[in-house]
């Protein structure tokens, strides 16, 4: 419908200028825009560190989240004037209206998007109080009063990244709050599951009814959501998303038990490697005993002496060697460790 003649296109400026911003669109977001059901994205900012109600304090930085990706927003100013124009019909007196172009808004800043490949774990650990069972009683677990959704909205990462961290921490909702379990709690729950499975003849390696296992440990008073969270964490991939049936992934469960066992040990005591391995085996289903080898938890432990073992990332020691890889994992256990020490 281009109707341009020698006289050109009338160009005008609307008096009441709006303000737009421009945002650079990477191919991934363009693909979302072109997809038949474009999702709603979100711009998130980390909640101000001071837990005040004043929403006026501006957060340090903001991120743009698609369902699976996160981009940090960086604002770029230009010294030029950038206008957004739209088409208008302009007329002079009695003459026929002519299609023209009119600047309706200025765009003083452009937002650059930089992909962020962070883990949600540090944010979630800050946001989620530790759910800790000591002597079978829940200790000092004052809830944060936040649902999972609310917690996610405060993490400057995409939902998929939050979900991954949530699952990794075996976080769960309980009594209107969200928690992450301590290593001690996880170990207790795992022991209960392992014992109950043996008693009830449930083969954890094969497909079993989630409900059967839940019933078997029902009287021990674990939050049901914690039970489901642990199962989801250990489930074989083909059962993720289906809560009725479960089977546990041997490759995931064996190292998980070893790691949890190690992390739940008080740090100030020497743990003999041989005793640890034996205890690890004892806490696995009979069929999996032989899988308990240090190889499977590579990078997660250190050997302070030739006969003792300790979880990595607990203290200054061992930070030199093995600082590569599993960086987030070592941080992850650090807090649990510190907390265990405080007790």
């Amino acid at each position: 419908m281009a109707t341009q003649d020698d006289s050109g296109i009338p160009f005008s400026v609307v008096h009441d200028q709006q303000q737009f911003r421009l945002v650079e669109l990477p191919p991934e977001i363009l693909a979302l825009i072109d997809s038949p059901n474009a999702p709603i994205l979100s711009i998130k900012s980390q909640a101000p560190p001071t837990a005040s109600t004043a929403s006026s304090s501006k957060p340090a930085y903001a991120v743009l989240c698609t369902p699976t990706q996160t981009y940090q927003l960086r604002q770029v100013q230009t010294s030029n004037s950038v206008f957004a124009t739209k088409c208008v019909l302009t007329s002079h007196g009695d003459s026929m209206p002519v299609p023209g172009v009119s600047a309706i808004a200025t765009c003083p800043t452009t937002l650059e998007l930089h992909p962020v490949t962070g883990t949600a774990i540090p944010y979630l650990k800050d946001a989620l109080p530790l759910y800790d069972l000591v002597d079978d009683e829940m200790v000092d677990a004052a809830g944060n009063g936040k649902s999972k959704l609310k917690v996610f909205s405060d993490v400057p990462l995409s939902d998929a990244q939050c979900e991954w961290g949530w699952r990794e921490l075996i976080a769960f909702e309980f009594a209107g709050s969200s928690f992450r379990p301590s290593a001690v709690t996880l170990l207790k729950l795992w022991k209960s599951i392992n014992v109950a499975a043996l008693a009830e003849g449930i083969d954890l390696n094969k497909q079993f009814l989630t409900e059967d296992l839940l019933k078997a440990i029902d009287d021990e008073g674990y939050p049901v959501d914690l039970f489901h969270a642990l199962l989801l964490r250990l489930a074989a991939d083909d059962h993720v998303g289906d809560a009725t049936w479960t089977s546990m992934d041997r490759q995931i469960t064996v190292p998980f038990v070893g790691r949890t066992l190690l992390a739940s040990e008080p740090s100030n005591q020497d743990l003999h490697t041989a005793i640890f391995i034996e205890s690890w085996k004892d806490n696995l289903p009979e069929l999996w005993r032989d899988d308990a080898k240090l190889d499977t938890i590579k990078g997660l432990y250190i050997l302070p002496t030739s006969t003792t073992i300790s979880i990595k990332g607990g203290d200054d020691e061992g930070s030199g060697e093995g600082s590569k890889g599993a960086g987030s994992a070592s941080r992850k256990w650090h807090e649990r460790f510190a907390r265990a020490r405080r007790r």
Partner: protein
Amino acid sequence: MPSVPLHLPGANSSTLPAPNPLPTLLQTPSGLALLELQGTIHAPTAEESVPSADKSLAEIGKLVFPLYSELTGQEDTKWMKRVYLYVGKHQRMTGEVKKLGKPLGVLARRKAEDDGEELEILEVVRYKIVFSSRPEPVGGEVDGAA
């Protein structure tokens, strides 16, 4: 509330925009386009504005694509090298049409149903018109006003 929803442009072209006089390449579904220039436009205020039919805008001049014709093929991009913006009758800026390295989303606020703040990408723009040089004086020969 630290999380603000950002809506992407949908395929809902319920309101037809006014006829688009720009070259096809610069046309977008909503009719939005980007124009960049050095310096600022000192547009006359509503009171100073020349009497025109529309009191909401100030007429600045004309936009001319001298090398463009509707018969120009898609693959022929020579016309992009030259754009004129006549400001008033005696000044002209020379510019060009540039393909953006990364397409830009035009981001605007939109009122949410619950009065909260929401954002919206109104349009994806892939080209912009850029005038990077200062205006130069010209004679009054391109007086397009009929």
